[in-house]
């Protein structure tokens, strides 16, 4: 992988152009398309698979969810124009892929129906998906956060700062006061606070990078994060 093709290192300031990274990769020919496809598969496999399982989409295609999503990726991403079409669609990438998955399942069902004489073909698969937006958004929120966590932790480990992740986690998730965490790491409360805050900023940058690749503008990102929280609250209650 060349340096110019690496996924971008999250930075504190983002350009206002959306989808820059994927658009750039698609303009680089075959190698770039492979990188873009790899990113799409890594980022969207889990939410799409969870979604398929939850709404019974895989069952309707007589496949297991994982297998179905892999075959969907293989089918659609082998077309070099598939992601290019997304760039002009005006949709978020996750919506584009989810719609695409429904059409793919529809095609599979049509194919199966022509193979089994007398079996009717229903449009329910495509319409079912619209009623399950919430399930998909829920899976997407969790998968994106997971991806951002992995990226942040990998960055910290690379710099020999794994401890800082533990400080962040202990404080923000465990609710442990900075001073108490400091005792463990032989640091002052202020030093722990500063490190935990910095990790939070890195996690934020990682998540913002994911959201931007999905098609969000920088100005919309806080709103996107709030929407992600909202969808989690709704499932929880």
């Amino acid at each position, binding site marked *: 992988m060349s340096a110019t093709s690496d996924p971008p290192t999250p930075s504190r300031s983002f350009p206002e152009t959306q989808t820059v990274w994927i658009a750039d990769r698609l303009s680089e020919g075959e190698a770039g398309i492979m990188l873009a496809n790899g990113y799409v598969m890594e980022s969207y496999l889990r939410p799409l698979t969870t979604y398929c399982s939850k709404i019974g989409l895989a069952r309707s295609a007589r496949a297991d969810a994982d297998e179905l999503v892999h075959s969907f990726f293989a089918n659609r991403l082998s077309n070099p124009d598939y992601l290019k079409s997304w760039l002009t669609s005006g949709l978020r990438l996750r919506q584009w892929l989810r719609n695409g998955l429904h059409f793919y399942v529809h095609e599979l069902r049509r194919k199966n129906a022509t193979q089994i004489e007398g079996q009717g073909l229903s449009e329910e698969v495509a319409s079912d998906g619209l009623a399950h937006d919430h399930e998909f958004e829920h899976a997407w929120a969790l998968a994106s956060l997971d991806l951002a966590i992995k990226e942040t932790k990998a960055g910290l480990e690379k710099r020999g700062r794994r401890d800082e992740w533990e400080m962040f986690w202990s404080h*923000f998730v465990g609710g442990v006061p900075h001073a108490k965490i400091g005792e463990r790491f032989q640091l002052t409360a202020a030093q722990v606070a500063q490190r935990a805050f910095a990790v939070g900023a890195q996690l934020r940058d990682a998540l913002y990078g994911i959201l931007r690749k999905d098609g969000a503008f920088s100005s919309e990102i806080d709103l996107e994060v709030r929407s992600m929280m909202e969808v989690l609250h709704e499932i929880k209650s």
Partner: protein
Amino acid sequence: MKSNPDLHRDDFGASPAVAIQLFCAILGPNAHPIDRLASRCAASDGPEWSSQVLAELMPAPKSIDGWIAWKNRAKDGIHESDLHTGDPLALAAFLQYVASIAGALALDGTYISKTSPAEIRRALNVIGPTVEPSWRDIFSSARIRLDEIKDIRLTK
């Protein structure tokens, strides 16, 4: 601190409760107080914490005036700037504030807040499921009453 399997993992284990805590950390001071409170209640000691905070409102007032008195007392403890940094005392006061509004709504459907009903509805939805069972019922009844009210006159 109570044991919570989510918190002993190296990741968040796809737990929506932990995810909400992380989203609050990501948003920092821009996180909404309702989300901050939900995040506090989702912490490993959250159920115990919210029970202690709400125990201060017991016995539950049997009149609207009683709930208004509780609400005003809670309101005095809410300092906006502290709330946005997740200060535990401000969050406790905010929980009592929401609970007092819920108590009055559940009692006879009186709306004792100047905060918009949409905001309060969201607070009832988000915070309600995280509090102890007796209060959970009050939050739930309050939400039902709120949805039934056609003409809400905002009250102090």
